[in-house]
């Protein structure tokens, strides 16, 4: 481990005040010895940098998928006080509400005939990759509705059923979204991209539930072993990227205006109650809603393909849940015995609210919030549930994925997209992308083992295992 970082538990490490100058609180992160082998010093530095920001509460945190990002580390979580705290796009990222959802089908693995045809039909129905455009042309009024109401807008416009938005974090629609704070440029980028998957690590994957660890919670979520599911991972597309770029510039000026001193320009921020901070929150919430509507539209296209190919009713494919990975939100948490409203930033981290949380649909109240952890292309994904421990220790947060371990440059040198595709094919996993380079970029070898990341959050109790999913086929950007 890095000098200056101390172990305080089997899976918990502390970065003391003074690790970088001007830290206001200590840093804390969760990691096993195996994962510690690939920890980058830059990621710990970024965790410590976050601890210098005004109004940070208790700790600057990182989950076991911590790695080197920009601004916050990936896997970073921090809460800021309402009176003295700030909001920063560096704690959310360019892909606002990049997130993931999982959909069940009534099919078992044996029912999944004509898999190649299914993959091609999904690839045709969901625009993917660089430069992909939607077949749908939204006008300004429709886009504004999408930004204000998110998943709810999509359902009201025929892209789903009522239970869908009830099964999303924030019910798929963040309060306080302000389309007026979204620039013309961002709107222009968002208009032709609704319902598109994007590129990079975004995917749509057909999976089979291969193991249930917690029968009761799985039952509440409507899952059983052998069942075919679909996982969708994508975000707010060019609209969210532009919102981040625009507001980063505004907040850089605000950082100077309010006399805030920061160790990294990407952490540009403004007080939560300032006009600049409020404008960023409004635009970010609107982008988050765009992302929820976007995933809803992709899920709608997926359901239509399954309904057509396997003659199953649209309504028999249930959305288990949808979670955001990159977002800042106002939440209430107990801090040192006192209930406080704080602004929680999660950058590459998942909300993991415990049982009894009023934000959950009634059917999930006893089990806690479903937490979806996508694996990489050839490796399993997991469903967990949120816990009281997460509420006490991590502002109700847990990990979001495997976390990269190999750079894209190295991946491209060492791995050929064609070979990976063939190797996955031999394991029964079909991959479809526009270009093989998209496959090499996201090969299983470039990620940390998802099992190990999930084991750490399970052992520390910040979420608990419910089920494991194995991939059968995937479409990529």
């Amino acid at each position, binding site marked *: 481990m890095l000098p200056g970082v101390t172990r305080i538990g089997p899976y918990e490490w502390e970065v003391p005040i003074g690790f970088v100058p001007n830290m206001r609180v200590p840093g804390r992160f969760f990691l096993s010895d195996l994962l510690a082998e690939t920890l980058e010093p830059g990621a710990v530095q970024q965790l410590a940098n976050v601890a210098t920001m005004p109004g940070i509460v208790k700790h600057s945190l990182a989950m076991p998928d911590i790695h*080197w990002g920009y*601004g916050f580390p990936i896997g970073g979580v921090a809460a800021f006080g309402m009176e003295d705290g700030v909001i920063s796009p560096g704690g959310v*990222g360019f*892909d606002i509400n990049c997130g993931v959802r999982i959909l069940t089908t009534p099919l078992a693995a044996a029912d999944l005939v004509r898999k190649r045809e299914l993959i091609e039909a999904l690839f045709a129905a969901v625009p993917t990759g*660089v430069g992909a455009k939607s077949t749908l042309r939204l006008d300004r009024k429709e886009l504004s509705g999408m930004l204000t109401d998110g998943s709810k807008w999509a359902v009201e416009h025929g892209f789903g059923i009522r239970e869908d938005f009830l099964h999303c974090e924030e019910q798929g629609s963040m309060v306080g979204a302000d389309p007026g704070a979204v620039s013309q440029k961002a709107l222009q980028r968002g208009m032709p991209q609704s319902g598109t998957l994007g590129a990079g690590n975004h995917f749509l994957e057909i999976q089979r539930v291969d193991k249930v660890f917690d029968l009761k919670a799985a039952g509440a979520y409507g899952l059983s072993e052998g069942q075919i599911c679909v996982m969708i991972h994508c975000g707010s597309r060019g609209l969210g990227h532009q919102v981040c770029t625009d507001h980063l510039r505004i907040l850089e000026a605000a950082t100077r205006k309010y006399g805030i001193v920061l160790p990294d320009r990407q952490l540009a921020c403004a007080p939560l109650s300032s006009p600049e901070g409020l404008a960023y929150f409004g635009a970010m919430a609107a982008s988050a809603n765009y992302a929820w509507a976007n995933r809803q539209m992709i899920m709608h296209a997926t359901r239509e393909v399954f309904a057509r190919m396997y003659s199953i009713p649209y309504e028999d494919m249930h959305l288990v849940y949808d979670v955001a990975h990159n977002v800042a939100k106002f939440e209430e948490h107990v801090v040192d015995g006192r209930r406080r409203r704080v602004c929680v930033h999660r950058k590459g981290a998942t909300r993991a609210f415990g049982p009894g949380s009023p934000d959950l649909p009634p059917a999930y109240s006893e089990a806690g919030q479903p937490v979806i952890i996508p694996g990489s292309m050839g490796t399993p994904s997991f469903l967990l549930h949120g816990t009281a421990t997460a509420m006490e220790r991590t502002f109700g947060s847990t990990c979001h994925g495997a976390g990269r371990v190999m*750079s894209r440059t190295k991946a491209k040198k060492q791995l050929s997209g064609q070979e990976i595709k063939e190797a996955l094919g031999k394991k029964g996993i079909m991959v479809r992308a526009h270009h093989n380079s998209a496959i090499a970029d996201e090969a299983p070898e470039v990620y940390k083992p998802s099992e190990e990341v999930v084991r750490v959050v399970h052992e520390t109790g910040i979420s608990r295992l419910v089920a494991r999913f194995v991939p059968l086929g995937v479409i990529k950007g």
Partner: protein
Amino acid sequence: MSFEELEHTADVRLRVKADTLEELFSEAARAMMVVMYGSAEPGPMRRKIEVRAPDLESLIHAFLSEILYISEVEEMVVSGADVRLAEGCAEGDLVGEPFQPDRHRAGTEIKGISLSGLTVSRDNHSYILEVIFDV
């Protein structure tokens, strides 16, 4: 003018070199397009661009962010730019070709240009930009 990709686990980190600052802006734009589309060749498309920012790093950040926006909305793969620099302002004429799905799908989507790790420096021979793209 040249660029190379440096090690970075999650994102794309580049080092761009050029003899003049104007060429550095142009080469950085081309490098960004190569990352995004796999190639960026000169073509028939032309487009004026103008950005303002208080310092050099912010100016190149604004310039690249504007090109990212233009590229997506106008479906233009930018291969370079004739750039003019003045105090707090970069002006240029972009050159490029139309985006074609069959030729421009070998790259990876860039979500934004990070201010973390964005530096412009100079050695005896050239100007050097280091920049991280979120992909």
